[in-house]
């Protein structure tokens, strides 16, 4: 991969938090290395306390790495300029609630170096996109959680960033809002923006992300394309109108791992996909009417759980 195509590069990054006067230590990140390509929607997954937010905070300069290095768009994260092209929506944010939504965008736009003319134009568009135009002049203290989240997204996009870090962006947002946020992310991808998404909502990550990394106890246990983790398995679910006892016995003899789910449904994992034809032959010989042969897809959630339980080899 050409280096100019890399949006984020993390090399053997470790973060240790010192706690208490007795010198206790908590290893939040342990030698994490990963690369995120420009234009990708990259999902960072992991259970609570896995180190996801720590990694994002290191990338944005809010935390200092204990060991290793990280860069955003080729600039070391210790350099404030590495955040020139970045936008960020933190988890559990606390916006200045004494301001209105429009005033807040003015502040964070200005801090990103935008002129007041640019802020005015961007704010108008973004508040429209996130559905907050109506409430632009209302004090933030009167906003609901979902409204704050939408405003936060507008704030993260105010400087037209090349890379957007979103930490649990759909937290507190209703299903309609979630769908809208998902659409915004897809639109950002179409514009060639890179999105770094921290989320524990696996279905959401599966729906929008190109690649994911899974963190557990500060260690990176898997990284790769979503398609690799949500592959179609060699397990099929066969549905019939009625499965006679004779057919069930013959199937059991031919495929000892077959599981009879109901009196018309059977689940079989094939060692060779061509074995599906043999099964169909057996059923047809016995005049069993097949209504469906469905390949069982492994969801991201299944893969995630398997990885955390150590059922799948890390890599």
């Amino acid at each position, binding site marked *: 991969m050409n280096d100019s195509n890399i949006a984020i590069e993390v090399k053997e990054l470790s973060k240790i*938090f010192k706690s208490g006067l007795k010198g206790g230590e908590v290893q939040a990140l342990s030698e994490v290395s990963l690369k995120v390509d420009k234009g990708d929607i990259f999902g960072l997954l992991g259970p609570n306390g896995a180190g996801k937010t720590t990694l994002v*905070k290191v990338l*944005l*300069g*809010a*935390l*200092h790495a204990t060991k290793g290095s990280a860069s955003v768009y080729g600039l070391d994260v210790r350099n*404030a*300029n*590495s*955040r*020139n092209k*970045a*936008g*960020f929506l*933190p988890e*559990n*944010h*606390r*916006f*200045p609630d*004494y*301001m209105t939504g429009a*005033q807040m965008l*003015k*502040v*964070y*736009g*200005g*801090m*990103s*170096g*935008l*002129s*007041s003319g640019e802020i005015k134009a961007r704010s108008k568009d973004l508040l429209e996109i996130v559905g907050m135009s109506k409430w632009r002049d209302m004090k933030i203290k009167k906003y609901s959680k979902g409204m704050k989240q939408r405003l936060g997204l507008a*704030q993260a996009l105010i400087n037209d960033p090349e890379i957007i*870090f979103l930490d649990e962006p759909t937290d507190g947002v209703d299903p309609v809002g979630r769908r809208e946020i998902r659409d915004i992310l897809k639109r950002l991808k179409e514009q060639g923006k890179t999105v770094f998404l921290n989320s524990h909502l696996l279905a959401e990550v599966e729906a929008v992300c190109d690649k994911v990394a899974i963190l557990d106890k500060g260690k990176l246990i898997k990284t790769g394309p979503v398609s690799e983790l949500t592959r179609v398995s060699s397990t099929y679910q066969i549905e019939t109108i009625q499965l006679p006892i004779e057919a069930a016995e013959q199937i059991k003899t031919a495929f000892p791992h077959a599981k009879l789910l109901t009196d018309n449904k059977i689940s079989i994992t094939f060692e060779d996909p061509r074995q599906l034809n043999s099964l169909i032959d057996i059923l047809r010989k016995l005049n069993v009417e097949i209504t469906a042969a469905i390949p069982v897809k492994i969801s991201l959630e299944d893969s995630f759980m398997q990885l955390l339980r150590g059922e799948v080899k890390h890599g």
Partner: protein
Amino acid sequence: MAKFTSILYDTFFEIKDRKIFWLYWIVTFVMILVFAFLPDVKINGQNILESGNIPEEFVAEGIAMFFNGFFGFMMFLMVFGSAGLLPSYLSKGRVELALAKPISRTQLLLIKFLSVFLIMSSIFIVSCSVLYLLISYQAGIFTGYFFLGLLVAIGKFLFIYAILFFFGIAFNSTAATIMGYFIIWFVSNLLEAREIAYQLLTNKVWQGILDTAYHILPKFDEYSANTMSVMKGNGFSDFYPVWSSGLFGVIALLLAILIFKRRDY
């Protein structure tokens, strides 16, 4: 410049949202009312300021003394009004938003310091000036030295806020910031009167310790004596409390920056 103006704008709205902001104006308004009706206060059937019994120098001295006390009271309110600004800015969920912007930590902290200082000083200048103009009109005495004294008083707030800033960064708590500040203030005022303690402390080592502490810490009361002296047109009575307090403020600010640069948020 956009970064500076946006932090200034944010700070202004935050200060405006605080109840203590309105307290400054209430105090100023009450004082304006008091002095607006002062001509009606009569001694022996004559107006207090028009009686001719009071020499002009005495009135001028009285005004300077009043303002020295008023400055102190307004500073006291300013300490409470500004102590929580930095801990609030550095609170979890808010500081990350600022740190994620393309602005270095040193720049961020210095702009925040300057913003609070400029806004609080502006409030101080406006409220004190309005009051002075009214009093000087009533008394028929006007001196530009008052405004020089006002500037010296603002200089005091500069090192006071540097101390608050340091505690704000170090403890990240409004209560601890106010406590830290008042401990310094209390110890400093005690040390300014250390000559009394020398009568009880014959041990030279202790005297040396108290002396060193006195020279290190800012000198609140001795600084205020300069404000009074400048307001009366006598210039600085003693420049040492001015520069040594200023130096303490600079060191406090540098330490605050150092802690902020190293800290994880």
